């Protein structure tokens, strides 16, 4: 019983990663780290369209 659960878990994580990559979360892994440091949470421009 544990096995299917483990596999489903693994599958879910892969799925989550694929979704993240497809939606552009890994396109630029450097800028957001810097962007976060800006004090005033800036406008819409800072984010990728969904």
């Amino acid at each position, binding site marked *: 019983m544990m*096995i299917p659960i*483990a*596999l489903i878990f*693994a599958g879910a*994580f*892969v799925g989550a*990663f*694929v979704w993240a*990559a*497809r939606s*552009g979360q*890994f*396109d*630029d*892994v*450097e*800028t957001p780290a*810097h*962007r976060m*440091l*800006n004090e005033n949470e*800036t*406008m*819409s*421009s*800072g984010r*990728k369209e969904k």
Partner: protein
Amino acid sequence: MKTISSPASSVDFSFLDLPSFRQVYTDARTPSKMRFYVRGMKCAKCVKKVEDIAMLDTLGARVQVFLGESLVEVTLIGGASGTQNSFAEVAKKIKELGYDPIPLEPHLGSQDEAIKEDRADIIRLAVMAACAGNIMTFAFAIYFGLSGVAADIFNWICFVLYLPVLFYGALPFYQGFWRSIRQKEMSIDGPMAVASVAGFVFSFINLVRGQGSIYFDSLSGFLFLILVSRYVQKRLQKKFLVPVSHFGAFEMNKARKIFATEATDWSWSLSQDLSAGDQILVLKNEVIPVDGWVVSDFGVLSLAYLTGESKPQVFQKGMKVKAGTQVLENDVVLRVEATGLGTQFGRLLEGLKRSSLTRVKVQDVSDRASQWLLWIVFSLAFVFLIGYWSINPVAAVERSLALLILACPCAMAFGTPLALAFSLKKAIRLGLILKSGDVFEKILQVENVFFDKTGTLTEGSLQVVRTINLQDKNANLSQLQKQLFLALEKISYHPIAFAIRKYFTDSAASSANANNNTNISADGQSLSVTTMATSVDSSCNSEFEEQELPLTDHYEKNGVGVFATFSSQQGFQKYGVQALASNEIAVVNQVIGAQNSSGFNESRHKMVGLYLWNSDSEAWALQAALQLELPLDPSAKATVQAFQKMGKNVYLVSGDENRLVRSLGDELGLDASHVFGEMNVEQKSVMVQSKAPAMMVGDGVNDALALRQAHVGVAVVGGVELALENASVFMTQSGVGALIQLYQISQQAHRLIRRNLTISLIYNLIGGTLALMGFVNPFVAAVLMPISSGFILLSSWFGGRD
């Protein structure tokens, strides 16, 4: 229509809003999106500053920074009234922040397709990681004693988990294998593809049979690690090599076309839309996008993009300039001769975009190196399979498969490319651009190092350091003498001509300021010495507005000088500018020597004189002389010594006069037998070939052949295009000292590659033997394979960094 308003015009990006430019710089599918390559963004503050541009409501734009690739993506959202909906305004704002936005043509930057490719790569890695990791977990349970039904279930799970690896993850290997088959070459993808499929089939059969080895775990593990290393390598190349291709491409596209005859009336035009005869205006700091003739009185130009030579050179009205030349001082008007691919620079850029520089053939090198090993492994496996088949078919398949998997030359598959990619990164930081990765190998094989003299060991361009008026020793050069020098040299592209033009335009500026002239007198004999003006004043055009001297019968005799007939009030006079004979130099030196004991080093100083033809005595009479100096590269001597210390023979080969070359050789501490003067193109190349393996360092047309023949050809900054095309290394910064560093980088790379190879060879040898003897079971393979791959990955990573 706009009028020139000098400094502000450098932030004029209005062309970006013209339909013709938008067509070039935006993708037809997303016309409101434009990407800019912006250098110099490094920190959080830069990101904030640039992205805050979008806060300006009037712009109606969205701005996103991609720091890793130095890209800024601008999307016009428009909509609200009062927004400008203009790329030009956004670009202007970025420029005002102090960054240089260069719009990218959609196919140049990382646009949608490249992003898709990146995402596909990363997803593939993730799937591979998940499958390999999970397979490993289940497989280990079996290795640690799981048996019976549970073990069967686990094996079947491994099988299912291997399916994505087989049909999705390993696709790049099949593609690579297929390509290599079509090109009739052996590639590292071969064993991977074969192992992936054969291993699967074999393991599947064993699984169904319920006995025998199962390799899903080891196969997925090492396929994953190899994909990781390839991904790392790809990222490195992208980050450090692609920016080279942005270089100049954009500048070549825009031109200010002048209407009618007034330089003040112009409009933007794509340079490809210009036609011969059009006049264009190029402002200070911009790059000339066409081949053409100077229409302005003169221009201070730099050939940096073309040849690497960054020193300013003065062009006069009517002279021809090539596309890629940069305007350093005043704005220049040009008449177009050729555009785009009609220009040498256009073709060069096109070639650059297509091939060599951006895709350094790192992979090929290691592929070639590993071919023989692959052949051995493949044929060994095959021979074993055939030979052992009669004894035990199952063991035959099993063992040859184990050999294929184990003895796969991982070090060469990714250790070498990684090491080379890291070295390339270091070389680029030194200002060295390498045409291919094998330079690192080749430079270490070099035994003889040849240096060209002019432009290579001597730094940059000739400078006029003294003027001597021989008609009136108390005075500076007369106005007429200056004008004659300039007018005579006007048709010449010889370095001396450039030096003279630069000197007189500079001194025109400084004499206006009247502070750079010093009169020195000694021994009752006085002579005026004008010291070199060090900076080019921007207000230096006054002198050139005077009428031109009426010269006829104007010609240049290559290697001798320039000559013309001057019609003055005294009738026709024949003038010439040529080098002084040595007895004349002695006379002039005597005069100079009185004030300056430092004297005259023949290897680096030259004297040219203005001569008037005396028809009575049938001889040239010296009117005035200019002393020119070629500064020595400060790193030259140290470099020569360093190479000698490494046991290399250093030679000096030059087309210059023997005694001059010898004198420089002495200055550098070279043995007389290693110094060769008066060498022509052929002789240089024969010399380089006869002393193979040799490294040739040169810059001129006369070096091009030798550069190509040499084992390693290095074109130095300031070199001509032909030299660059034939060399395998370009130096983009002056100073041959970087060569020593390149040598050290190569040594490091070599050590690293050798370390990887040794590890891998020992491993392959032991693993291969064990595999053939039948000692390798899936567990051993599963443990050994990733360990060796991981070890080499780490070894390259740490060895290559710093």
